[in-house]
């Protein structure tokens, strides 16, 4: 697979992931663009790994978490009115918008854990690999994030997602 083929196939997914991390379309575009500029010279190696998408997603995550990343602009805040999608029921919409606002106050690492776990569907072990930490640390971040978001876990969710890699 060439870099162009990869980009054509996976760019929308990468941008969606970037958007959920940054909550800002302009910053998401900048983030993905900067990472792809670093991917290009390494494509021979990255394109040969089992899951190039996972590799690039990890690069995006780390770039997002880089505390010296200084993106230039803060742009239009996203809200439900900006969505060009079928409107939800008012009560659902208010609840959803409220949850989206609460996501904004999470520290970056917690937000990344939430997005990787609940949007990308990664196990805690896989998230730990991306973040370069232990699975127990991932669970700790997730627990704090969910408390801030006031999200209630079901019984199934309280079990370690990937206990085999959850060694701490």
């Amino acid at each position, binding site marked *: 697979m060439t870099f162009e083929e990869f980009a054509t196939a996976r760019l929308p997914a990468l*941008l969606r992931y970037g958007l959920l991390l940054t909550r800002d379309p302009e910053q998401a575009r900048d983030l993905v663009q900067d990472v792809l*500029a670093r991917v290009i010279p390494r494509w021979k190696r990255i394109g040969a790994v089992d899951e190039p998408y996972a590799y690039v997603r990890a690069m995006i995550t780390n770039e997002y978490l880089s505390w*010296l990343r200084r993106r230039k602009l803060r742009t239009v805040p996203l809200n439900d009115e900006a969505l060009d999608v079928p409107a939800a029921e008012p009560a659902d919409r208010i609840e959803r918008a409220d949850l989206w606002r609460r996501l904004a106050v999470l520290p970056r690492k917690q937000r990344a854990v939430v997005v990787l776990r609940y949007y990308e569907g990664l196990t805690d072990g896989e998230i730990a690999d991306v973040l370069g930490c232990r699975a127990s640390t991932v669970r700790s971040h997730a627990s704090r994030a969910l408390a801030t978001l006031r999200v209630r876990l*079901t019984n199934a969710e309280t079990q370690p997602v990937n206990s085999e890699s959850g060694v701490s």
Partner: protein
Amino acid sequence: MTNVDELRETLEHYAVLAPDGNGVVERAQAIHRRRRRRTSIATATAAAVLVGTVPVIVSRVGHPGHVAPAVSPAPVDGGLLKLTLDLMPGQSAAKVAYGRYGHTQYMSVRPHGTFTSSGEVYAEDPGTYDPKYFLAADKVQVRGHIAYYNEFMAHDNPAGLHYDYLSNPPLLSPVFHGAVGWPDPSGTWIIVNGGKNLADLLALAENVRLGVPSRVVAPVHLGYLPRGAQLTFAQTRNGERESDLAFSGEPLSPLARAAGWVNPPLLIKTVNRTADVDAHQKGTPPALTIAGHDSWWYTYHPAGPFAFYGKDSGALFVNAGNCQLQILVAHVNKFPFDELKRIVEGATFTDCSDVSTWGPPF
């Protein structure tokens, strides 16, 4: 209280707001090409410098009694802080970042209130810009004056991307890279890049002016600078409550700096302390106190957060009220810790969260 399914639905619901991919890959390719060119130049330069430096190193080793020269406050080229580029009156809130590097003033604008444009605007000092790509392009009208429209211009380096696109046409979807430029009566060239199409671009250009002189402001006033610190880049980022002052390096554009092409020898950055900012020092007790401020001094470690700044780098972080001063140096032997400490001791701060309290940094 909500549940995990609703959290998943919320993420999926908002993910559709992701930007379209138009231009992302092409821009990444352009950044890569320019970075590669820059790296080859830097490698050649480093090799040349190394050849000339070896005898000096040997000479220094042979004289252990060498004493560093006394330092004194350095004069600052205040011209770099002066700006005339602006939006029309009443629209200043849309200006989210502005500053100057070398002969170029710039500002980034984003929609705000009734102002709906988005883009980057540059003003090149008289006599410093070669407008040949504009003069050969189509003529358009901006506020009744003749301007020029070139469909293959990039905001950070118009001529550079023009060449890139001539030799390496975009591989994926077509993308809008147009720019409008015109000369001001003063001889300054104004270049506007933005919008999704020509109509958007012209709407933005209509709102640009060379106005009353202003200057870059920061939440910090620096009473001391090391000898040899020459200001090369200054910017205020209203949107993010940050300011950047770069010294003694090549006057790179904001995009080049953001892409990490070259780290300036001395970078003094001031940020508004937020939970995100404080999280980085959380659990790490301040190693020292400077002028009453909690401070952290980091030297190079291959796995450390500043590895990208080079093997000789150092970083001094200082919490002062609701500001965090971040001083990064590429070579601690050129700007040693004691000098950075003196910068902090001579610094005074305003309210980092309120841009209206910011003033000239020197």
